[in-house]
């Protein structure tokens, strides 16, 4: 298999291009996904390709009828994408920042997530909602949440948190082809990170985590960008002779429970690293999983390294304090050995 170096942004763009080429029912709908819908000049029309440039070039390739720039109207974006999904399309809707879910949560949680169930299994909602998470670029409290646990809570939704370009591409392609509503969380701090992506058709199944680094002394489960931070911590720990196993669940609904439990049975220790706030989070969820299903295997109390119970602050030193660091992970591991 040939590998190419692609950025996380390029990998996502490539997944969208491939799936739109493959299936004419795939459409893109969101704010500024092209960038100047009032224009017929091809260069101006594709002015932005999304505020973070992820959908650049798509309107030129697929036209305005499939790459739909919307007004600022999140309820209508998610609602229309859900209605379109129920009636024959396979929409990819963009919710620019996951913090914006406050203005469209009804359409996500009461409509898209519940339709199939409420209608006795007769509806299919093949909807992918791409959205961004993550602190680290000074976007402050209303543009930086990592609130994926909120969506994971809702039965009917699937949640995807890719940490690298290859997974971002392979999981987005799987998400678009899946017949259930999926929230695809892109960490905006990762857009410029590069990594090898397999050539040709590359699909990553939903619900299968991966071992990012094998080890035997402690299991570190990390999500999204925190996988990179956990790998950095593992490298520091290796200098001390501690071999950490880093698990990247990749999707949190469904969650690859087996992968996590098997790793804990081997290492007998677990640290969960989560950029979300600590209460009712994926960190508490994964620790509850381990406490209820692998308690007897634990040699130390489980630990979590998370953001504090505060909104994401703006000022750079405060924001740096907010995001979990490799040093915090190293300390947590040392404390349990």
């Amino acid at each position, binding site marked *: 298999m040939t590998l190419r170096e692609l950025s996380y942004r390029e990998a996502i763009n490539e997944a969208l291009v491939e799936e739109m080429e493959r299936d004419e*029912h795939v*459409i893109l709908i969101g704010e500024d996904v092209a960038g100047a819908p009032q224009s017929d000049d091809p260069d101006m029309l594709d002015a932005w390709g999304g505020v973070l440039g992820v959908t650049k070039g798509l309107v030129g390739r697929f036209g305005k*009828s*499939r790459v*739909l720039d*919307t*007004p600022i*109207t999140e*309820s*209508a974006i*998610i*609602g*229309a*994408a*859900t*209605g*379109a*999904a*129920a*009636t*024959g*399309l396979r*929409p990819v809707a963009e919710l620019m920042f996951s913090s914006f879910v406050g203005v469209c949560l*009804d*359409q996500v949680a*009461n*409509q898209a997530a519940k*339709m*199939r*169930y*409420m*209608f*006795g*299994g*007769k*509806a*299919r909602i093949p909807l992918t909602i791409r959205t961004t998470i993550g602190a680290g670029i000074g976007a402050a409290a209303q543009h930086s949440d990592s609130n994926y646990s909120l969506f994971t809570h809702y*039965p*009917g939704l*699937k949640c995807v948190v890719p940490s690298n370009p290859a997974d971002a591409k392979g999981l987005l392609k*799987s998400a678009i*082809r*899946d*017949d*259930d509503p999926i929230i695809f969380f892109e960490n905006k701090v990762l857009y410029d990170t590069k990594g090898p992506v397999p050539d040709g058709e590359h*699909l990553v*199944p*939903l*619900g*299968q985590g991966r071992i990012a680094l094998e080890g035997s002394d402690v299991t570190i489960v990390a999500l999204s960008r925190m996988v990179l931070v956990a790998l950095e911590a593992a490298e520091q720990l290796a200098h001390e002779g501690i071999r950490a196993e880093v698990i990247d669940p990749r999707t949190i609904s*469904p969650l690859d429970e087996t992968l996590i439990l098997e790793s804990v049975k081997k290492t007998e220790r677990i640290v969960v690293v989560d950029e979300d706030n600590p209460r009712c989070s994926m960190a508490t969820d994964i620790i509850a999983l381990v406490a209820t299903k692998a308690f007897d295997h634990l040699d130390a109390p489980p630990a979590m390294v998370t953001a504090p119970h505060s909104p994401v602050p703006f000022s750079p030193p405060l924001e740096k304090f907010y995001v979990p660091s490799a040093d915090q992970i190293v300390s947590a591991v040392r404390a349990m050995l």
Partner: protein
Amino acid sequence: MTIDSVKVAAQLAGLSRQQLLSMYEQMRTIRTFEDKLHELFAAGDIPGFVHLSAGQEAVPVGVMAALAADDFITSTHRGHGHCIAKGVDLNSMLAEIYGRTTGICKGKGGSMHIADIDKGMLGANGIVGAGLPLGVGAALSAKVRSSGQVCVCFFSDGASNQGTFHEAINMASIWDLPCLFICENNKYAESTSTDYSMRVENIADRAAAYNIPGIVVDGQSMIDVYRVATEAVERARSGAGPSLIEAKTYRYYGHFEGDAMTYRTEEEVNHFHERDPLTVFAEQFAPQAEISPQDLLDIDQQIERRIQEAVEFAHSSPLPQSEECLTDVYVNYKSE
């Protein structure tokens, strides 16, 4: 054609005797269905709660007569009439309201979530105003697929004060989507009158904000509703975009069954009963189409039996097993 027959045809909006009989039958079905539910609910026979649409029959029947079978609708918490007029099976509807496995949604949705996607009925909805964006999506889907279908979003005066009303109509208007926004203005959002909840006289006046047609119609006359809906459907199908139609109507029962209805005057209630949609049809339109009182009575009796059969079907259907709670959450549970 004589001058008189041309005039009659115009008054009947070009509908044939057979079509009119069928539309009357739908109105009578809705009325009998709702009256029966009122009775069954009072007797403690039905779990949960129901919102009845008796009094509003002319709107769904008039609108649906203007649609093709594969067109879409989205509905509201007061959705039984929309379902019946769209052709959803009565047995399956009643069984759903009874929470039985034979219900259209296997008993998982109940009255507020009846849906039949195969018939273009995209769901009643427990959230006021939530159906509008979904309907815009169905219209978008029709446009992208060039299918020629239209979508009707039914909603209420209450929903017209929700943000989704604005977002949905704005999106449909800027994209010229094949969509109809049909407001069933029954004067009350739960207990709150439109006299209190808005400063414009007509909800249709709000169409000006989207530069689309805004039409007020007598919601007690199925023929008038049919006439304006037909024009709006033609406009939508031709690619000219959506319309907002406000049908002035009234619900006879409370917001939900059990509501003491202490917020309306007897005078007002009586006024609307005098404009009952079935009576309006029987007195003003039936004679012109040579439909006799006996023709209507025959239909009434036949519907009475049909509803009774549906009640018996629901009653005799099994309740679901606990395991059913866990199915139908996802299409695919396992990774591919």
